[in-house]
């Protein structure tokens, strides 16, 4: 019998996916329902917001943006 699971499909780069997987592992698998392929994850709907928040924090810590000087 066919089943339909409600959830959120997250598509991202493999690099971002790696970070997401790490966040998930650190928190005891409370975000991800299934790891679909290299660029796709299936995530619990209620957790998407907090996952995004965590990703943002992680990115801010790790990735340094090279800001442009805006000079004329």
């Amino acid at each position, binding site marked *: *019998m*066919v*089943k*339909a*699971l*409600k*959830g*959120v*499909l*997250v*598509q*991202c*780069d493999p690099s*971002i996916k790696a970070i*997401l997987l790490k966040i998930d592992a650190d928190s005891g698998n409370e975000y991800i*329902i*299934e790891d*679909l*392929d290299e660029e*796709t994850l*299936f*995530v619990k*709907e209620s957790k*998407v917001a907090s996952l*995004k928040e965590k*990703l943002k924090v992680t*990115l801010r810590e790790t990735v340094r943006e090279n*800001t*442009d000087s*805006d000079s*004329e």
Partner: protein
Amino acid sequence: MNASSDTMTANPQALEVLQGFPGTKLEQLYRQPSTALAVFRRMLPHLAKTIVMAMLYMPNPFLASDLDAWIRPDAVAEKEQALLVLTSLHIMSTSLQAQGPRAYILGKAFAKSLRQALTGSGEHKSFGVPCRPPGNDVVDVKTLDDHARRQWEDILYYMVGSTTVGVEGQSHISDATKSLLELGNFVDKRGRITQTGFTFLLQEVNAQVWSLLIVYLNRAPELLKMDSVDILSFIFMLGSLELGQGYSTANLSSTQKQMLDDLGDFGIIYRPSLKTPIFYPTRLATTLTSDASALHSSAAAPTPTFDTGLAGGSGAASKGYIIVETNYRLYAYTESMLQISVLALFTRLTMLFPNMVTGRLTKTSVQRAIAQGITADQIISYLAAHAHPQMLKSTPVLPPTVVDQIRLWQIEGDRMTTTSGYMMIEFATEAEYRDTVEYAETVGLLVWKSDAKRCFFVNRIEQIRSFMSNRRAARA
């Protein structure tokens, strides 16, 4: 959510509200010919309109097989889309006859009202009861435009005022409007503009009006004990009125009379005085049920319309005022603080002259805007919509390098996309999987699939569900 953004002409927000209404309420709403006409014009995808018109004077139900034969095989996705919107709005339903082939019929109330609208028959007064003011002091169009502009800009000033220096003190909006803006989450408790507010600011005027009205529609029933059907049908009626013509308030319902004050605050209608039972729709009202392209194209027409009419007297050039160069420099010929502060949302302004400002689109300024919830497309469409006539002569209107770069700046921040929906798993047979996937793909619901895992992801499930039950029925 996605589906509504696909519908070509529809106003997504209003459509969502309508789709959320129960069938009985819609039925009640459709009794007004003006509403039926407005829903037809504004809410339906193009193909749905065609189907409705074909069925309007059809004596018998429209056989599903005939409909399939009428629509080209390569337009299945549009067809499904159209049928979905039509059924969700209770305009069309499947024929009730149990035996016999599947067929569609139009909702009785809707069909009757639309026919009345087209022929101008019936006893309804849904296109407004015109009335001449006592003493013959006719209100001219300019007064109406001035009123509309003043009121609407005040609201915008109020929102922008929280961020920009030098704009405060110019807005005098009523407390009701203030609380409405707060309820709509356009400003927060302290009156500071929110992300939703920024998005709101960059929309076209028409979309702004709708956003505000929808907040009104959602909140007013609870707070003010108003009937939402009355509110909606009044809004739709306003859209079919004639600019410059006075209308009597005599035959309005109590809810609608109550609305007059609020709509007056927004600048959507104008009342010369509270005592006379007469109101004038402004341009904001009469263009409510026109779609975006209508507003655009009319810019070239000789009559001043909507955007042009509104921007007309505010000191700026009546049409566009922005020039963008390939080197990201931006020149805006405007004196309006409102326009300047909107520009300041995503531009680094450098110089202010009496009749113009100059600035630059920079990575920082654009990304700051994006961080605030404004999208690249909004920026681009704002620039394009307000481009100086000189810019309009070139094609494309904006320099492609600038457009691309704004998009790139946005993508830089995009790390992922999320789509909420349903994962379909555990298909019994390969054939079942394949058929369903193909169907999902043609109707444009498919987001992701994996043939190996035999599962796929769709963003809506209703159509898939009905497809699968039909398929099972066909097999049985």
